[in-house]
């Protein structure tokens, strides 16, 4: 296991690394060997159980296990052994590892099989109804993807949807500022603003998309008529349809960003702002030069998380427009959903998703780089 260092990551934390180690002294040699032994025992046990199950599953050994749960429990035991051994061998360094170990082990364990299996599926031609089963078909899925007009259409739509995240961010920030102000009934407003996020996507699709916006009697349609739009049709024109869809999604998710930004605003140190006020700074200056830069880390988190969820938009599209009209509102996720569920084209759909995953990862990485650079410029 690699060693951990106690360096601080950026200039904000000015404490030298030596202080913590000195306070607790070094690790005893007896502890180190005990740690090693515990780890070895745990690993051996896990490998043994897993091997036994593999042998049993492939028929080599006649023991019949009902399921793979023994391996699962052996893995849990191994995780505990790992943690204990880390603490014993590295003392405080080990305790630090212990913080991140449960989450890491949990995530790795849950996703390792699905990821590998998923990647395998992506390179097959698996259709659940195909009578000859599935075969590896190399890069065929990729070639099909390259020529699939539905895919490129959906990708273009995603560009539009993601660009609107900035607009949603601005609105959410404004709302967070409003909520942070000294107002009466703050509790009421906060809870009220939170409610849209709590409505399930199915309810949103039906109650808003189909009921509120219903072309003949829905309140929104009537409102549109009152505003002067004679024949309100929210889902016929491609651009109007896209705007309507993203409006519904934004309605649900803006509270998400509001919460994050509000928590961030609440945690801001007050003395800095008071000092600025005494110095005579205007409201806008205080905001732009003090509040906003301090809020940048939280803003980045909010935007990145929101973007990721936006890129997964599917529920509302599936239930309200089925990707229509003529594919105008289709998202990659809803397209994958159709391919996977309605057409059982499991292999191809998984490939689309994996390609999308790569694209999104690249995009998010770029986004973070740009954001980091911007943050460094501002601070």
């Amino acid at each position: 296991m690699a060693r951990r260092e106690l360096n601080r990551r950026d200039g904000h934390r000015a404490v030298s690394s030596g202080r913590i180690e000195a306070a607790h002294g070094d690790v005893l040699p007896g502890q180190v060997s005990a740690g090693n032994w515990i780890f070895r025992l745990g690993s051996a046990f896990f490998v043994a159980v897993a091997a036994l199950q593999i042998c049993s599953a492939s028929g080599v050994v006649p023991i019949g296990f009902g399921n793979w749960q023994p391996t699962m429990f052996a893995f849990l035991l191994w995780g505990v052994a790992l943690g204990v051994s880390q603490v014993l061998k590295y003392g405080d360094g080990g305790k630090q590892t212990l913080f991140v170990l449960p989450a890491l082990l949990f995530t790795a364990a849950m996703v390792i099989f699905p990821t590998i299996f998923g990647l395998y599926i992506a390179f097959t031609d698996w259709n659940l109804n195909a009578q000859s089963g599935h075969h590896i078909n190399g890069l065929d899925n990729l070639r099909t993807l390259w020529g699939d007009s539905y895919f490129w259409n959906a990708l273009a739509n995603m560009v539009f949807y993601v660009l609107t995240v900035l607009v949603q961010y601005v609105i959410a920030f404004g709302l967070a500022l409003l909520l942070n102000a000294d107002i009466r009934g703050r509790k009421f407003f906060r809870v009220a603003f939170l409610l849209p996020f709590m409505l399930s996507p199915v309810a949103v699709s039906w109650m808003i998309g189909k009921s509120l916006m219903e072309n003949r009697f829905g309140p929104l349609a009537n409102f549109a008529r009152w505003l002067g739009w004679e024949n309100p049709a929210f889902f016929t024109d491609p651009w109007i349809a896209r705007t309507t869809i993203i409006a519904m999604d934004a309605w649900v998710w803006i509270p998400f960003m509001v919460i994050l930004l509000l928590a961030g605003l609440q945690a801001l140190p007050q003395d800095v702002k008071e000092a600025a006020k005494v110095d005579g700074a205007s409201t806008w200056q205080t905001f732009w030069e003090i509040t906003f830069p301090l809020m940048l880390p939280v803003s980045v988190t909010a935007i990145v998380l929101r973007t990721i969820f936006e890129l997964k938009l599917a529920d509302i599209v599936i239930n309200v427009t089925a990707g229509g009209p003529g594919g105008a509102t289709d998202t990659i996720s809803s397209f994958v959903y159709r391919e996977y569920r309605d057409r059982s084209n499991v292999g191809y759909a998984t490939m689309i998703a994996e390609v999308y995953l790569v694209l999104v990862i690249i995009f998010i990485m770029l986004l973070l780089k740009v954001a980091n650079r911007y943050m460094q410029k501002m601070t």
Partner: protein
Amino acid sequence: MTSEVAAHAVVEEPEETRAAPRQAGRVAGRIAIYALLLVWTFIALFPIYWTLSTSLKLGRDVTQGHLIPWVDFAPAWKGWQSLGLSPDTIFETSNVRDEFLKKFINSVICSVGASAFAIVIGSLAAYGLSRFDYKFGPWRNRDISFFFVSQLILPPVVLALPFLVLYKELALLDTRIGLILVYTLMVLPIVIWVMRDQFDTIPPEMEQAALVDGCSIWGAFVRIVLPMALPGMVAAFILSLVLCWNEYFFASLLTGFDAQTLPVMVASQTGSSGINWWTIAALATAAIAPLLLIGIFLERYIVMGLTVGAGK
């Protein structure tokens, strides 16, 4: 706006002479604030009100777009009846209500369980990522964070078959614990990212002082840092709870009988024999009610951060 208010006590006295135009500006500002708040409140609440009122409507009222009960239409209990929750059915045995309550309890267990579990291991991981420099092979903190967040990106539909097979082999199908594990996986990245930001804004001097005094890393974390990070934790918990509560895809995929949750019930209200608007609306209202209560109850903990952060 915030700064105005915060500086209220400090600044107002010496500037009484310039109070009049200042007052007018402030009044205008306050009116603007309230106006904007009310506009957005209306936007946020109207669809929810619509859902609630639809649960009291009969078929015809729904399709006629009537707005206000007792004014536009006569409220009826049909929606709540179909759940066994209307005044006339609430004290009788009702198959539907039993189903509803069973799914409700399952939803509660899975959402709260997953969110709590995610908060525990997520906060720990976030603290570690915020305070310490990890180096697992070539992986550093940023890579670890990214690993967590990348779990969010893949559309869940693509994991359907792998998870089905995995859970079948592990005998976790149709179990609540199985669903809790999946949900935890789903919300863990959010918890980690939110908490990491929260910990980043708490200066390490606090724990340093405690450590010098002889506290262990663990003690410093629990007694000093955690209380200060409470607003973030509450925010993350609420978000996780809501996401788990409304999650439909894995719930419908991995459960059949024992562990079914509410969203699955909502989905079955539409089919080829019609749309039960009143039941969808009643279910949606019943589904949002507990979340609302939790929101009301936990809201004050978000506020707590104000006093904690300021008092140094």
